[in-house]
Structures are given as structure tokens and as C-alpha cells.
């Protein structure tokens, strides 16, 4: 069925090509999400393991990278392992990179209202394993010395992945050891590094997007630096970046203005190469996917079947029987068709399922995925 290829984490968290294992024959469930902004968003798979295996997952697996392939060797999803949760009967252990910060500084103000920032303090051991992940703490009415102390304390508290145990005693104890692996798309790692700029030069937002990736790679060499798939269409925006802005926040601020007329779709696709393109909703009559009410299958516009796990967002979908009498030709969303902003693809023993979400989705899952 699928190939879920796990690769060893390289030095400073850089994804490597050292193949570890294929999890496909172990998992009992699989679910991933792909978003028109960011592309590969989240992936979760569960499996039953022995005690020794479960301990290995908890202690050695974080920051390993994954590439998921279809039965036809098409790349379906790509990302890194952010969290592991294991249930040992009534004991639960989870470890995550989510709250980790191994390069910390404190932004403070003195009693006189003078603003200052400590120099960064780092834990090189953590950085060597996972890459650099910034954290900022604010403190008011203090001194630079106290702020520096706080930076050291905060680093000591957050430099390692967070382990969260829990115990529940009583009732029927489960007999199996269940492992849940939570992966994030590489786009999420843009949130790890902060930057700032005082330049007021006006530069194309798409050009700045490419430059931002190069800047990021100088800290964490996670991405393909090619800008080949970044459209040249864009608008000029200021290069100014307020301090403590993460690269992800900056990227979204750059690209949310689109071409000035149409929005963009963007993200890290195959090979961790960044793309920016005009969204498919700009040409809403060009339908990529179609399905019938009586079908649990998806077809392209020519009638060829698309496996559910290969359906991607930034596309127009049409339900064949739902004919709009006179849809506005420029309207992306109509009764019979709509723009797919986000897809959720899941596979378990009950079969494969696909959820398509429209633009401006307010689904809880989508909001949580972006906040995580």
C-alpha cells in the first residue's frame, strides 16, 4: 500500500537520506493534511509496539524525517517527527519539540522604560540534534543582568523536548502499547527562527520569499534553496521586519497580499522546494476534480480516477449532479463547485477517506493545525 519511509535526522536536524525503516506494514491508522498555504501540514500514524520499541520511539525518533509514497511511487506527504505519544496501559508518555527552545533571548524594559534585548543564549547539544529553535521571553521593570539570568533559566527549562507523563489508576487497564507519531510539514519549521530587518527598501514579495528561505537555511539548512517554482508575479513591499518575527510569520505577511489582484497558494512541496503560484480559484471554471453523488471516488476532468490519497488542495472540485443554473464565472465557490483549501486524507482498516475543505475554512482541525 503506502510507503512511509523514515530517514535519520542529520547533524543540526538537517534531513538526511539515511534510510531507517518503512513503517507501512506496522501502522493501524494514517491521516495527513495538506493546505493550500504551506502545503504539507500534518501527518499522524498509529501503531502497536512492544515495550522496547515504544521506548525507542520516545527517546530516539524526534526530528527524523518522513516521506510518504503512494502505491504508484507518488510523493504524498513530507515532513519531520515533532511528537511521540505512547500509551502503556494506564501510563501515558508524550515527548514533543513543540515547546522546545534552544536559543533564547529576553526582551526587557528597565525601570526607566528603556528597552533592551539580551544576547542569545544557546544549548549547542540540543541544537546539534534538532537544529536551532528560537524562543523569546519578555520582562518589564528589570535590569539587563536579571534579564540575562532569566534567559539562562528559560533555556534550561526549554532546551530539551518536553516530556509529558500521566498516570491513570483504576478501572480496566488496556493490555496493548499504542504509539502515535505526529509529524509536521517542513513549512512549520519556518516558525523556529526569528529575524528582523530595518531596511525600508521596496522589493517584490515573491523575491523576498526566496531570499527568506536562503536566510533561513543559513541557520537551519532544511530547505531546497531553488526559487524556480516561485512565481515572478508579485507586488513590492517593504523589507522591514519587526524584531522577534518568525520566518513563518514573515513569509505569510509577504505572500498574503498575493499578486495584488489574486491570492497565492504556496508551500514546501516535493524535495522541500518552495513554490508560490496564483491560486486555482483565479480560474474557477478549470475544474481539477469531479465526483458524483453516488460515488466514493474522485476523477479528474477527463474521467480518469484519482486515488483519494493523491487529491491535493489548491484545486477546483465539481460535483457532477449539482449544476449551477448560472454561476458567476469569476466566483470560485458556487453551488456545484468550490475551491479546495485543505484536504484531509485518512486510511485505516475501514478504508480510505478524503475530506475537502473550502477556502476560509473555520474547521477546528484547520485552526488547531495552524496554531500548533
Amino acid at each position, binding site marked *: 500500500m503506502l510507503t512511509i519511509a523514515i530517514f535519520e535526522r542529520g547533524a543540526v536536524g538537517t534531513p538526511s537520506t539515511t534510510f531507517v525503516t518503512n513503517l507501512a506494514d506496522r501502522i493501524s491508522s494514517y491521516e495527513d493534511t495538506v493546505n493550500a498555504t504551506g502545503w504539507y501540514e500534518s501527518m499522524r500514524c498509529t501503531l502497536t509496539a512492544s515495550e522496547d520499541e515504544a521506548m525507542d520511539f520516545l527517546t530516539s525518533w524526534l526530528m527524523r524525517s518522513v516521506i510518504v509514497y503512494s502505491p504508484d511511487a507518488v510523493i504524498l506527504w513530507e515532513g519531520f517527527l515533532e511528537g511521540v505519544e505512547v500509551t502503556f496501559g494506564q501510563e501515558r508518555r508524550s515527548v514533543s519539540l513543540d515547546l522546545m527552545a534552544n536559543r533564547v533571548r529576553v526582551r526587557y524594559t528597565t525601570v526607566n522604560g528603556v528597552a533592551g534585548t539580551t544576547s542569545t543564549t544557546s544549548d549547542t547539544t540540543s541544537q546539534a540534534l534538532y537544529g536551532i529553535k528560537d524562543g523569546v521571553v519578555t520582562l518589564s521593570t528589570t535590569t539587563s543582568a536579571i534579564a540575562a539570568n532569566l534567559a539562562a533559566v528559560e533555556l534550561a527549562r526549554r532546551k530539551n523536548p518536553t516530556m509529558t507523563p500521566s498516570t491513570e489508576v483504576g478501572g480496566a487497564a488496556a493490555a496493548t502499547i499504542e504509539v502515535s507519531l505526529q509529524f509536521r510539514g517542513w513549512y512549520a519549521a519556518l516558525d523556529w527562527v526569528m529575524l528582523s530587518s530595518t531596511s525600508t527598501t521596496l522589493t517584490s514579495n515573491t523575491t523576498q520569499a526566496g531570499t527568506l528561505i536562503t536566510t533561513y537555511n543559513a541557520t537551519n539548512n532544511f530547505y531546497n534553496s531553488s526559487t524556480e517554482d516561485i512565481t515572478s508575479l508579485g507586488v513590492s513591499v517593504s523589507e522591514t521586519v519587526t524584531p522577534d518575527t518568525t520566518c513563518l510569520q514573515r513569509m505569510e505577511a509577504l505572500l498574503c497580499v498575493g499578486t495584488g489582484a489574486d491570492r497565492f497558494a504556496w508551500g514546501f512541496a516535493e524535495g522541500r522546494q518552495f513554490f508560490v503560484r496564483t491560486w486555482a480559484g483565479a480560474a474557477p471554471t478549470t475544474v481539477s476534480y469531479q465526483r458524483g453523488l453516488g460515488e466514493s471516488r474522485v*476523477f479528474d476532468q477527463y474521467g480518469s480516477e484519482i486515488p483519494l490519497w493523491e487529491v491535493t488542495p489548491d484545486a477546483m472540485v465539481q460535483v457532477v449532479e449539482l449544476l449551477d443554473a448560472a454561476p458567476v464565472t469569476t466566483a470560485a465557490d458556487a453551488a456545484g463547485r468550490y475551491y479546495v483549501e485543505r484536504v484531509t486524507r485518512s486510511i485505516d482498516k475501514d478504508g480510505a477517506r478524503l475530506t475537502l475543505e473550502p477556502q476560509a475554512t473555520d474547521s477546528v482541525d484547520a485552526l488547531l493545525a495552524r496554531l500548533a
Partner: protein
Amino acid sequence: MASSIWIQGGDGVITYISGSGASQTVYAGSGTPWTSQSTTPYEIGNNDVSGGPWTAIAAPQVAALSGGAPFTIGSRLVGSGFDYVTEEIPIQMRGTTHDNCVALKHRLWRICNTAFGLPAQLAYQPNGATGVVYYPIYAADIQEHAYFINNEDGRKIMRATLRLTRGAIGTSGSLSTVLNGITVTNVGTGANNNSRQLSALSGELLSSHGAPMNIKIVPSGTGAFRKLWMASGIDRIYTSINTAKTTTTSADYVSGGTAVQTGGRLLYGVKIRVVARFTTFTNLSKARFTCTIRDRNGASGKLLKTFPQQTPLNATASFIDFGYFDISAYRKAIAIEPTFNFVFRLDSSDGTSVTATLDYFEILPYYDFCIIEEISNGAVASEYLYLEQAHNAIAGGAYTYAPRPSFYDRRVSDDTPIYERLMRGRPPRAREPNPGTSGYLWMSWTDTSDQHVKTDTATVTAQALPLYLTLRGGG
């Protein structure tokens, strides 16, 4: 002869649970009488007291259905598979004492429950049958009948139910060679080319799921592998183009109409893969390729599919896998030869002049397709490549299908596994596109410089493991 039913333990020891004589041997507490059918103290309990006559249960096929009421009449089959089988075998065992009967029961439980180590196999050859069917045993329970300590107390015969959880599909226990040390040349045409028909196949499931294959690939001469593509299906279509293009924007290589299958309706389950060989590059790093498929009306025909852009890796000769094309929309109720036009485009990524020659392309109608990457077989003479989809955990023991296919390097001198390679897609299985007609195995590879060398060769041996649901007969 009587039916032969035995369990091959994880240690290789055979335990017969069906006798051959009119009377059953009584276990006296020593020796290994169970290793011979004529002396085994175990016996299938085909009587009213022990239980009804037993035959292996055919694993029910689990069908995945799509659609249905209230939108359509009936559903559509979109997939199928088999789950494990749990069945009960009535059995009885005789000992000279109560304790010896219990010892037989203990022993039977131990040899059946070895799945965490080397799994045991249930072997089944009915009276008059030529072949034996083997099933892997994953778990077993033995429940003695209450008669043993009540009504038949003192008779020293334990009647019991052996409940096995076993694999859904049985195997012949041995591999059948379907390609025997053939020479495969890394090119889509000519003698010993890269698409070869398998020998006659046996077993069930050939037309639906195929039979697992082990494939040994020994590179010859300097033919070291960096990337290997393999597929199973019907014979591919090879088209020579041999045309060079130079462009600073884009330029098309246009094929004539290509029939992707001849002689009848498109086979169910077959998809089309498009691969091509490009040579003689200038400014390799700026060259990009795409492929579009159009209808039979030529280069201006209706656009049916556009493949994602691909990047070549070697300036002398690059092999590009564009991806697959689902042709289910063209599988109509009438017999037609679907014909498409394949248009290959050379693009310059940034306006730099690029040149490339399209040497040839191949259209693969396939069932299974896989890609194995980062193969480095070191000193060519010392290692070979091995796809394993069937294995025997015990030396000389029966083969069973591997839970997870794997591809790895092996040492020539002693077949020692070196390390496993990443394999993506679905490894080729032996198929019969039509009953009695064997399918093909196709392969292509690039060397450690990512170059596709048409004169590279490899010696290939493929062995299939016949599968059966229950009875094998003479197959």
C-alpha cells in the same frame, strides 16, 4: 494413502497430526514418534465425539465497495483483500498414561506458538493430492474435551480442539523459477531487452493479486546501480524518436499516435507509466522536461494529462520516469485499441539555451511499479541485489510470503544480507493478465553517476511463490 497433515515447527521438526495406520500409536513418554506419519500419537479426530470432519477454511475475500443507495443501484468494487483465518481442527492424542497425554498437548501448544521467533507452518496434503499447501501459524489454542477427565477418564485418549490463527493464503512451500538467469540489457529494444515474459505460472490469485516474487539481480561488468525501476504488467511499447531540440524557452518532441495496448479491451487494474531516455545535453542544470498526453488526434488533440516537470541528472544520458496515467476512463464496453499522443517538452528554467535529444520513450502498461534508490553495490563482483517477497525462516523449510517486501544488497560469496534499500511503490508480482498468459517483468536502471547506459547488462533470476486458498491439487 491417508491425508497428510503436519505442523512444521519453528525448529524445523515435523509433527504429524494425521496418522496413516488403522490404529493410532500410543505415546510412552520417550522418543519422537510424531516425526513419522505411521507412528504419530496425534490424529485428526474425524468422528462424532471429537468433532466433524475437517478441511482447511477458504479465507473469505473482503471486498471494498464504493457508492450505492440511495444514489445508485448497487455498489462498485474498488478493492479486495484477505484477512487472517481462525479455524478449529478436532484432534486426539493417545498416551500410555494421563501425564503422557498431557505432555503431547503441551508439546503441540509449544510448537504452534512460535510466531515471535520462527513461525510454525500447517502443511496439508489430502489423500490423492500431488501438492502440499503450507500456511503460516500466528497463534494457537488447544482445549481438551471434558471427556478426558470425566466420561473417558482412564482411557488415556485426549480429544481436543486445536484452534489456529493462520495466514489467509497458503503457499506451495517452494519457489518456482519464472526467469532463469537471463541476461537483461538496459534498453527498451533489441535482443535481451529490459522487458521479459515470465514462464508459465501456477497457483490461484494470479489474475487478481498476483504471486509474490523473489528477484535476484547481478550486475555485469561495470553496471553498478544507483537507481532501479521495476514493473510487472503486459509488454511495454517502445518508440524510438532520436530527435534533438535546442531552446531558450520550450520545445516539443512529438510522437505519433501510440496504442498502449493491442488486441482488445484494456485490462482492468492496468495503469500506464511513461518513461523516457534523453541524451547529449548542454546546460544540463537548466534543462527541464514535461510530458503531456493527448488524444489520438495528434499534438493538438485534447489534453488528457500533464505530468509534473522533471529534472535530468546526467549530461550524457538521463532516464526520466514521468509518472503514471490512469486509463480507467478509456476502459469501455467495446473492444478498442486506445491510442494516445505523447508530447515531451524541453524547457529552459531561466532562458539559458539548453539542448537535449529524446532517444526513446517507453509506455508501460503495469500492475505493480516500484523504485529503488541509492543502490550502491560496492565492488560489482562482490554484491548483488535482491527483492524478497517470500522467505523460508528455516533452512530448507517451506516458503511463505513475507509480511513486508524488502529490497537489499547481498554478498555474492554467501548470500549474506548487507543492508536494506528504500523501495517505494509496489514491488512486481507474477501476474496473469489473461488466464494462461504470463505477464512481463520490466526493469531499467541508472549507474552511480545517474547515467543510463544502454549497454549495461544484468543477470536476472525471478522465482514466484504459488498461492492457494485451500486445495492445491497438482498445481
